[in-house]
Structure formats: structure tokens, C-alpha cells
């Protein structure tokens, strides 16, 4: 090649390189809980993108534990968690120089569901705990129609699995007759098809045909009962971040806590905090 052609090639290559980096969009990486990351955060992200077109999101929803780990190892801008951060994890963060902050973005109620043909419509927290720890194995044990109880739970890495354990079961282990299903939809579907079934799902799934929601300690789950604390099976959903969020992450968190974000939260049947 002649000198001038060589020069031209380099010039074009250099311009392209600079150009692509200028057009390259800004990215927010969010990792963590499936409860937040399945519907809520992607929808808030879409709404955010509609207002800020050159921002892209990378959302990986593989469980609350992965979200905490991602913030500790600086692999994400924001984490999502459907459970509290444990003391061990806060200590690990500190030893990595990370200041783990949690921001409540919504509240989730866990609804206990039974088949609609089941005559039981009220249970106390102790009874729910006894059922899922396997102490009561037959509906006759709590005054229902005789039949072996089929308990459906989430799988063992789910944040919801863990939270239900601490809210309803006094941190005891699940009974070994319970069946681990892949997600909320699977649990709702199994309970709807099994007259002796019982399970727990998030509020977004209580309208599945064939199931009915049980009152816990006499209270039915709703926005009001969660916010005033009378429904005991409720938990806050968190964003996690290293210190106070800054820059793009701060914009996204403010958007989520603002009117548009909270409207999306309530459309998905979580309880808005504002």
C-alpha cells in the first residue's frame, strides 16, 4: 500500500473507534432477586429508558444472594434483594471496603393459597408454620376435609423461600414432604389443580383461576394491611448499593421511588412505599 492509502486507512479506523465510543450507550448493571427482577425492575427500566433513550440496562435476576454478592464484588451498579442482608454479608462487604446500603423500593406480601374447593379460609401463623414444617400432614389435623396435605414451596435458593421460613415457620426447616417448584406460576398452577394443595405466592399471582387466598391471623393481604402491619407475612423489597447511589444509579433509584415508578409497582401488585 502507498503511504497515503495507509494514512487514510488509519484515519478512518481511528475515527470509527472514537465514534463508536461516543455513540456507545451508558449502561446500568442490576443483579439480584427474581421477585424484583422478573417483572418490576424490567418494567421500571423500560419506563426509564423511554425518558432517557441512550441508557441501556443489563438486568440479571438469579436470586437475592447473587445480588448481594454482586455488590460486594463490585460486579453491578445496583443489587436487588427480597430479603434482609445478613450480618455475615455486611461483614464480608466491610472487609472488601464496600458499604452495603439498602433502599426500600416496594413491599411484597406473601399470600398463602389453597385450592378454591378447600373449605378452610382462615389460618393462624402457627398453623401455617406447622403445615410447612411437616408437623401437620393431613387437613383433618386443622379441621379441614381429610386428605394428605400437598405443600408446594419455591426452590431452596429463592429469597421468598427463605423469607417465608423466617416469617411463618420460626426459621425451622421445611418438612421433607414439601415439593420444590420452579416459580410462583408453577406453585399457583399445582395448587389450582390439587384439592389438597397449599402453597405461597406473591400478590401478583393471587388472581390465578382455581385458587383462593387464606386469611392469616384473620387479615387478608392488601395494600392497607401490609402498610399498617396487620398482615404479618409481608416483607420489604430492597435495592442494594455500595454507599449512597450516585450518577445514573441515583437517577434510576429516584425514578423508581417517584410517582411513575411507584405506579408501576402497584400495577404489578406490590405495595408502593410512597
Amino acid at each position, binding site marked *: 500500500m502507498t503511504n497515503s492509502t495507509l494514512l487514510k486507512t488509519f484515519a478512518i479506523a481511528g475515527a470509527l473507534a472514537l465514534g463508536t465510543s461516543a455513540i456507545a450507550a451508558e449502561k446500568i448493571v442490576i443483579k439480584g432477586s*427474581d421477585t424484583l427482577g422478573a417483572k418490576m425492575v424490567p418494567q421500571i427500566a423500560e419506563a426509564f429508558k423511554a425518558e432517557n433513550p441512550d441508557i441501556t440496562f443489563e438486568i440479571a435476576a*438469579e*436470586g437475592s*444472594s*447473587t445480588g448481594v*454478592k454482586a455488590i460486594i464484588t463490585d460486579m453491578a451498579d445496583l443489587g436487588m434483594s427480597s430479603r434482609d442482608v445478613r*450480618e*455475615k454479608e455486611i*461483614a*464480608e462487604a*466491610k*472487609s*472488601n471496603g464496600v458499604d452495603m446500603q439498602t433502599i426500600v423500593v416496594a413491599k411484597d406480601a406473601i399470600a398463602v393459597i389453597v385450592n378454591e374447593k378447600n*373449605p378452610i379460609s382462615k389460618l393462624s401463623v402457627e398453623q401455617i408454620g406447622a403445615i410447612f414444617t*411437616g*408437623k*401437620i*400432614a*393431613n387437613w*383433618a*389435623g386443622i*379441621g*379441614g*376435609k*381429610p*386428605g*394428605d396435605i*400437598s405443600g408446594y414451596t419455591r*426452590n*431452596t*435458593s*429463592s429469597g421468598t*423461600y*427463605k423469607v417465608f*421460613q*423466617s416469617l411463618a415457620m*420460626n*426459621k*425451622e*426447616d421445611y418438612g*421433607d*414432604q*414439601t*415439593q*420444590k*417448584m*420452579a416459580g410462583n406460576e408453577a406453585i399457583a398452577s*399445582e395448587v389450582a*389443580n*390439587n384439592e*389438597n394443595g397449599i402453597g405461597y405466592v406473591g400478590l401478583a399471582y393471587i388472581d390465578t383461576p382455581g385458587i383462593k387466598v387464606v386469611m392469616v391471623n384473620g387479615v387478608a393481604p392488601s395494600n392497607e394491611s401490609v402498610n399498617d402491619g396487620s398482615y404479618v407475612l409481608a416483607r420489604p423489597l430492597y435495592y442494594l448499593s455500595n454507599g449512597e447511589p450516585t450518577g445514573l444509579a441515583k437517577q434510576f433509584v429516584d425514578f423508581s421511588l417517584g410517582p411513575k415508578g411507584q405506579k408501576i409497582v402497584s400495577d404489578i401488585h406490590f405495595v408502593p412505599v410512597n
Partner: protein
Amino acid sequence: MLQWVFLLFFTLIFSVVFTLMSPKPQDSSFSAESIKKQGGGMFGVEWATLIKVFFGGNAFIAMFVLALITIFLFKEGGQFFPQYRKDMQLYRSSGQEFVGLLKKEVDQFDSLQKELNQVQVKILTDLYEEGKEWEEVTKLTAPFQAFVQTAGASADPLRNVVKEAIDVTVAAKEKVVVNYTRRGITGIDLTTLMTDEESAASLKLSRDTVVEMMPRIEEAHKAFRQNLETTLSSIPVVELLAAREALDTYVKSAEDFLKEIPKFNKKLENYNPERPYTMFQTFTGFLFGSQWTTNSSWQDFYGIWPLLSGSLLVTSVALFFAVPIGIFAAVYVNQVATPQEQNLIKPYIEFISAIPSVVIGFFGVMVFGESLRALSQLDSLAWVPFFPLSERLNAFTAGGLLALMAVPTIFTLAEDALNNVPKAFTEASEAMGATRWQTIWRIQIPTALSGIISAVLLGFGRVIGETMVVLLCAGNRIAVPNVSEGFGTFFEPVHTMTGIIAQEMGEVVPGSIHYRALFCVGIFLFFLSLLINYVAQVIVRRYKISAG
């Protein structure tokens, strides 16, 4: 990790270069080499050598990738055992094992209480069969329900002590772990535990606290006995015969349990928390442990036996259906069918292996499992002891679908084995006057038997390694199947080794004990498949009847 990749890669490059560098024949010498020389080539190397290197290189790449996978698998899985041992050592030194003994006693009482629940079942079933409605039944049985409640509450003194002990031990364990993570030490190093004064002191305090609870435990035991005796002395009169019999069984079990209480006490008194937890115990705990509990607030246990028994149950159902279908279809297609039938049946069966396993799994959940349960609820089939089924996702559903997937494997290999029976054998048999069927049954199948057995073994290997179908259809209950129900065991939900890896791998924290335990399950599967393939090959080689 990366250094292994580089090492193997350099071995590959080195072998290629070495082949290229091997001495080439002289141009001018009159030798056998120069006559064979083909001439031409690139970079001073002949075509023959280049072709050899190319094909050899491909073989090397396959072996290289396999070596990489094997090394990675063993590296991750092998680290599980030391880590698990240290975790169990912490379980013991914090006093949790002691509390675990107490918990076992409470669990036994819960099983006793379940027998009382069975009495309730009988009473309630009878009332419902008389046609009464739920509100009326609840009113009628209220006194008995109240009795059941008080009976259940008799263990409360013990439960309260257990709760307190749990809080003490868990707090101590958390403190030790937090102590290490705060100092940037991840994973618990036993040597550090021994020399770190603060952690050792905190664990000793926890141990001593629970052991010092013995007087309170004894008191709780006394109160427990009193409550149980009061319950047994105030059993209500029950009219229904079946319920009365069940109640008598309960009373007997309760009296046996009463006698056991002092023995529990003795066991707790004789417990020694200072024993070290050995590697041997870790291995047996993993291979024969009957509990696989993860993400627990108390203690994670990794025992493979519930998963292994689930896998074996599903495989046995699958092979029960697939082996006869596959082999007899092969016999038919190879020996009896007309050429038109052969051309139709063979590709059709082999097409089954083209269906993606996730589609079959989905079909299983939506159609097969549901129709099986609906079938079991028919009144005409009520005589079958374990019908009606309550679960549509169980080992039988998964096994049935896996049979469908194993049939093409077994069919193809069995058919090949039958094809390889020398024609001379068939002709000799027919020359002796045997009928077609006698020839097939007495000559051809025995001759092809080694191939058929190897086909069955490879079908077994296929089925035990299948993931998607079992994950969707087997019900995912992590418990050793209860064999006391006879054939009903096959209709229980089970979890499998492949299913647990698929279900838990996506959300496990890399480097944790759970992560490594899943790799260990993978290693177990690896060895199992290796064993099956090895046995299949040995059988084929040893029992092969020479054609000449």
C-alpha cells in the same frame, strides 16, 4: 485455573510442532522413504504429514476439552469435602449437634402426634361420608379437636428449652463466622479455629451453655412426661370402630414413647462435644446421608441418598417400560417385519430421539401427569390400593416419559446387535428344521444377547443423566421415598441428582459449600456413567460370539 488451560494448550501446540519437526527423508538418498515421498507440500512439509497433523489435531482438541471438563469438575468437587468437614466441625463445636439431639426427640413426638391426626382423619371421613357439611362436622368434632390440641401441646416445655438453645448456638456460630469475614478470611480454617482465642472461646462458651442446660432439660422432660400421662388418662370415648382402633394404636405408641424419654435424657448426658469430626464421617455423611437441606437457618446437610434413590426409582420405572418395548420392537423389525413395515417403523422410532427433551417434559406436565391423576380418580379403579393419586408430578410420570426417550436408544442398538448375528447361524438352524420363532428365540436372541445387554445399559445411562424431563415432571420432593407403601412408592414425587443440579445451580453463590456439593453430585453422576459404559463394553467384548 487458567494455568491448567495454558498447560494443556501448550501440550497441543508442542505435539503439533514436534510432528512437523520430525526428520524428513533426504532428497538424494536412494531409500524406501524417498520412494514413498509424495512430493509437493507447504512450508517445506509434505501433504501427508499435514493431513496427519490436521486429523490428529482434531482428535487432540476433543481430548483436550474432555480433559479440561474433567479437571474442572474434580477441582471444584474435591474441595467440597474439606470444606464440609470444617462446617460440620463447627456444627459440633458450637453445641448445635447437642441441640440437634433434642430436636430429634421433638420430631419423634411430632410423628406420634401424626398418629393422633390419623384418628381425626377417620372420624372426619366417616362424618363426611354420611353427607354432613363442613360447618356441622366442625361443630360435632370440636371436643375431640380440642383434645388433639392439648395432646400436641404436651411437648411445649421441651420445645421452649430447644428454642432457647437454638438461639444460643446459632448466635455463637454466626459470631464466629462474622469474626472471620470481618478479618477477610473466607471459609473457615480449622487450624485458625484452634489457634484463634476469641472464636474458640466463643464456641466453648456456647457449648458449655447448652450442656449446662441439662438440669433445665431434665425438668422439661419431667413436665413433658406429666403432660403426656395426663393426656393418656383423659382419652375421650370414640364411637367409630375404625377410629377406636387407631386411637388404641396411638395410646400404645404414646406409652412406648413415655418409656423412651429417660433414654433420651441419658443420651444427652453422655454426649461429648469435644470429639473431632473426621473425614471418613464426612464421606459417609455425603454418600449415605438421608438429608439434603440447603439454605437453612439451622444447618445445611448434604446427603446424596434422597437424590440417588429418586434417580434410581425414576430409572427403574423408565427401564421397566423401555426395555421390553425396545427389544421386542427390534426383534420384530429385524426378523418378522416386511420390508415396507421396516421402512416405516425404523425411522419412526428413531424420530422419537429427535424430539427435544423440554417439549417432552412440558407434554408430561400438561397432558400425561394430569390424565394419569384423572384416571386414578375414576370410581371403577378405586380398588387399586394407592389410587386416587394426589400428585400429578411424580416418579411414574417422569419414568414414563423417560421410557419414551430411552426406547430409540435401546431399539437402535438392539437392532444392530440382531443384525450382526451371522447368517450362517440362522441358515444352520433352519436347515435343522427349526421354526422361525424357535430360530429367533433360541439362536438369534442369545447370540445377540451381549449387544442387547449393552443396549439396555446404554439406555440406563441415558435415562439416569436426563435432566429437563425430571426437573419438570418428577415432583421435586427431596426425601427418601417411603417404601412402606409397596407399589405406591412409584407414584410419589421424588427429586433426582440431575434435577437438583439444574434447580439449584443457577442461584448458588460460586465457591460456597452448596456450589461445591452440587459439583460433587456431578462427579458422582460422572462416575456412575463411566461405570455403566465400562460394564457395557466389558460385556460386549467378553461375550461376543465370533462370526468366523
